[in-house]
């Protein structure tokens, strides 16, 4: 019972986070939502009894990918500012 509830809740969380990530059109803010999606996926994998995958997802989805996105955004903004 608690198992079912956990799976259902995390699935809903992931689905909602994905929708939010797509609809957040500003990439810097999207990076934050994507990080939340990554955390949600890590939790989902854990309740689906895949801790190995959850660990990967934690590292990649919650840290590395948002970092790369933010760095790209920063690079783009820096050029904009210089071009004025």
């Amino acid at each position, binding site marked *: 019972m608690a198992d079912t509830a956990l799976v259902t809740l995390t699935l809903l969380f992931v689905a909602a986070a*994905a929708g939010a*990530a797509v609809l957040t*059109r500003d990439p810097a803010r999207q990076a934050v939502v*994507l990080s939340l999606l990554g955390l949600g996926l890590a939790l989902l*994998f854990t309740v689906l009894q895949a801790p190995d995958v959850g660990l990967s997802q934690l590292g990649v989805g919650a840290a590395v990918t948002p970092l790369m*996105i933010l760095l790209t955004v920063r690079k783009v903004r820096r050029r904009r500012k210089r071009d004025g």
Partner: protein
Amino acid sequence: MTGPLAALPYATAAWLFLAGVYGMATSRNLVHAVGCLSVTQSSTYVLLLAVGYRRGATAPVFSDVPTSVPVVDPVVQALALTDIVVGATVTALLLALVVQVDKGHGTVDPDELSELKG
């Protein structure tokens, strides 16, 4: 899980795929589009792990449980792991290309990229 909830994992996978595609197709910012691509990709993880799930079973890692307990499918987990690496690296490559698109074209709005057509 029974009843309509039983379809929820699969429905979530489909939703992730379609939502990501929608985002990519309507995106006005290439960085945002790359983010949407990673949403699309997460549908594959969800589908794979949902397929391999087994009710009342635990992870196929026997460091702290006896080898007789029922476990979920390890193969899909290995596939999902590989898939995550693929996703991260593709994201990195595409973002690197976006940086260069910005340098070359001075924009990251796909509507303003008009060099290749016809």
